[in-house]
Structures are given as C-alpha cells and as structure tokens.
C-alpha cells in the first residue's frame, strides 16, 4: 500500500481522485490548499503527490519547487494535475520539478495508471 497525498482545491475532483486511488488500494490523504499541502508532505512523507497548479495560499508550482529544494522531500514523485494545457505551462511544470503532467479534463483511469507506473519506477 502506497501513501498518496492529493493537493487539490476542487472538492469534486479531490473526492473523485481519492475514490479512484483508494479503489486501487492506496492510502490516500487530501489537502485543499498549497500551504496545508506542503505541511502535509513534510509530516506524511508520502510515496507520491498529486498536485493541482492553481491552489490558494501557495500555488502547486511553489509547492513543487519547495519540495525539490528540501533534501528530505526531493525524491517524492509529483504529478501535476492542472487545467493549464499550454506548451509553455507544461515546460514550467517540468522545470519546477514535476515528474508527470496531466491536463484537465482528465481521465481518472489514466491518472491511476500513471500513478502505478511512477510508483513502480521509484520503488525500483
């Protein structure tokens, strides 16, 4: 069982991702803003973080940059789940340290597959 932290301010999407990943057998925790999300990353040390870009208090990108700057958190894989679908946004997301990038509207099944692949890759 992997611990996954979902940081997303849209209640519906948060509940949906939580349900989908719980169904896949993961232990899922959720937060709805960037600041609380970063604190949860520090306290939980999850195996993977799913991060929205446009978050209150701290943006997803800022959370990602903060994680990559912290020696204890830099290894945690991050999937950015965002409505920002421009090529330049994708570049910014990866430059901030995201491991994968998924745009909304999204397929929860695809997200679950990407999570499985990323977890498998990092556990090796």
């Amino acid at each position, binding site marked *: 069982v992997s611990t996954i932290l979902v940081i997303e301010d849209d209640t*519906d999407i948060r*509940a*949906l991702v939580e*349900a*989908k990943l719980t*169904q896949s057998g993961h232990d899922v925790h959720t937060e709805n803003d960037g600041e609380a999300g970063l604190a949860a990353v520090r306290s939980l040390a999850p195996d993977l973080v799913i991060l929205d870009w446009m978050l209150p208090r701290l943006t997803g990108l800022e959370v990602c940059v903060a994680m990559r700057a912290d020696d204890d958190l830099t290894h945690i894989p991050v999937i950015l789940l965002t409505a920002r679908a421009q090529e330049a946004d994708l570049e910014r997301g990866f430059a901030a340290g995201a491991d994968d990038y998924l745009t909304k*509207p*999204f*397929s*929860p099944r695809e997200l679950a597959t990407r999570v499985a692949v990323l977890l498998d890759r990092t556990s090796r």
Partner: protein
Amino acid sequence: MTVERAIVAMSVVLGALLVVCVVVGVAARLVRRLRERRRIRSTERIRPLVMASMADPQHADALPTTGRDGRAMRALVVALLPKLRGADRNELASILRRGGQFERAHRDLRSRSSHRRIAAADLLGAAGDTSADAALADLTRDSRSDVRVAAVRALGRLGTTHGAQAVIGALSDERVPANTCTMALLRMGRPAGDALLEALAGPSGSERCIVADLLGVLGTHEARQMLEDMFVAASDPNERRSAAMALGRLGDPLSAPLLIEVLEGELARAAVDHDVAIACVEALGLIGDRRAIPILTQTLARSHRLSFAAAEALAPMGPRRSRRSIRERDDGFTPVTAILSGRSSRQPVAEHEPRVRA
C-alpha cells in the same frame, strides 16, 4: 390637530412598513441560507454514492433520482462531467441515462420553470446528448436570456452542425453575450467551421468580423479564399483587419502575396490605415513566408506602431536574414532593440501608443 394626527398616523404606518420590510428581508435571507445549507448537506451525502457508482455501476441503483437528493445528484454529476474524459466520463453519463435522467431532462426543456429549463440544458450539454440539439437550438430563442445562455453553452458542448448554426444565429442576439457564443463555437471545433463558412457571407458586418476571427482560430483552411475575398472587398476596416488576422492564423503561404500587395498599397498611400497595415504585418508574421521580408523590413522605418509590428513579425522569421534586416534598421529605436534583446515588445507598444514616428 387633524394634520398632526395624520402625520403621526403616517409615521406609524411608515414605521410599521419599514419593520415589515426588514423582517421579510431577514426571513428571506435566512431561508436562502437554510436552503444552501441543505443543498450542501445533500451534496456531501450524495458525493460518496456517485463516486461508488463510478467504481461499480451496481451502486448506481442506490442513487436518488427525485427530491432534493435527486437534484443534488444531478447537479454534482453535471459539475463533474466537464472535468472528466475517457471511460469514467462515459460511465458517469450512463449513470444518468440508466436513472432516466435524460428523458426527464428532455421533458424539462419544455418546462414552464426557467430553472428547470436551465438545469435540463446544463445536464444534456454536459452529458453530450446530441439528440437534444434541436430542442436546445429552439431554447436559444427562449423568452428568458439566462435560458438562452444555458442553451448556447450546452450546444457548445454537443458540437453538432445544427447546434453550431443556432449558436451563430445567437451571435446577433443582444441578450446573449458574444463571448458565450464564441466560446461555444470554439469548443465545437470542426462542426462550427462548416457552419461558420456559411455565416461568413451573412449580412451583419460585426458578425462577419467575429466569424472571420473564429475561422482563423479554428484553422478552417477551406475558408482561405472567402477570407481573401472579404479582405479585398470589404469597405469596413474592422472586417479587413479580422480577415487579415484570420488569414495569418491559417498560416497558408498562398495568402502571403495578397497580404504583401495590400501592405505595399497601404504604405504607398498618403494616409496609411494603420489598423489594416498592422493586421497585414501581423498576418505576414504569423504565416512566416520569407517573401514578406523585404516589405516588412521597409515597414521598420514607418510609424512607431507599424515598426513595432514589423519587428515582431520579422523576429521569428529567419535565424539570420530577418535579424540582419532588423539590425540594419536599428538606429537605437526602442521597439527594434527590445525585440533583438528578447524582451516582449507588447508592453512598450501600449505605453508609447500615441508616439508616432514620421
């Protein structure tokens, strides 16, 4: 004495009316708050059921379809559908279908209640039920503007040719915001392109401008000849500008000679139409045809706005030749140096808009 009594009576009546108004206002607010709380509670109760139904369709039978919970379920699903794609989206739509919600929504499109008509349009649009396009097209002429807007939005999600024609018709409707129509048409993509081609020959100039803009953004290449004709024949500078920009967005090099010819003609005139000339320059920049380099280089020496646009157009056009053209013309003039140094030129244009160099 009688007058005094009348004044007192009037004051009492007015005071009582004021108190009644305040009480009614507070009560209405309380009722609204109570309803909202109930709606939130209902949604919180339904959400896990909807999530469980998506994971296992057998749970869908437990979903409420009527009453407050039924409304909450429909609102939740309608909110979720546009956020999803793929099999989970289809599963969510089929939950609605199995629960008889589509039939109900089709009926509600003709309901006397405008709230129901709006909710039905939202549901059928979000679920992508293309069989509703004719009924939704009728709703674009509803007596209430909020219903018209909901219908246009829903048609944008359905993406049918019939729906596109209805949305284009709504472009001339003052009660539907133009951006709602344009967003709907952009969302439709290809089906909108076919209907837009027909509308390009429509009677309204402002509508033709929007249609030309949309054809360019959608990349409808079949529109090239019509847009070129519009660019040459239109007397309204707005139409010419829209046509030129659309040609630029299409990016077809076949349009470059015409744009070059018109730009040359504009530059030769004593009173240059800056808007049309700039549209030509920007379009040539978007097309990126190297045959435009000489005229764009020549344009660098014109007014501040024109030279800025020309520098912007030239900058990405070629690694060496166009940059050399800009540098040859660069006599310390801000826009050119700004572009060569890689800074965005958009801001300085706005700041120095009134400054025109002869």
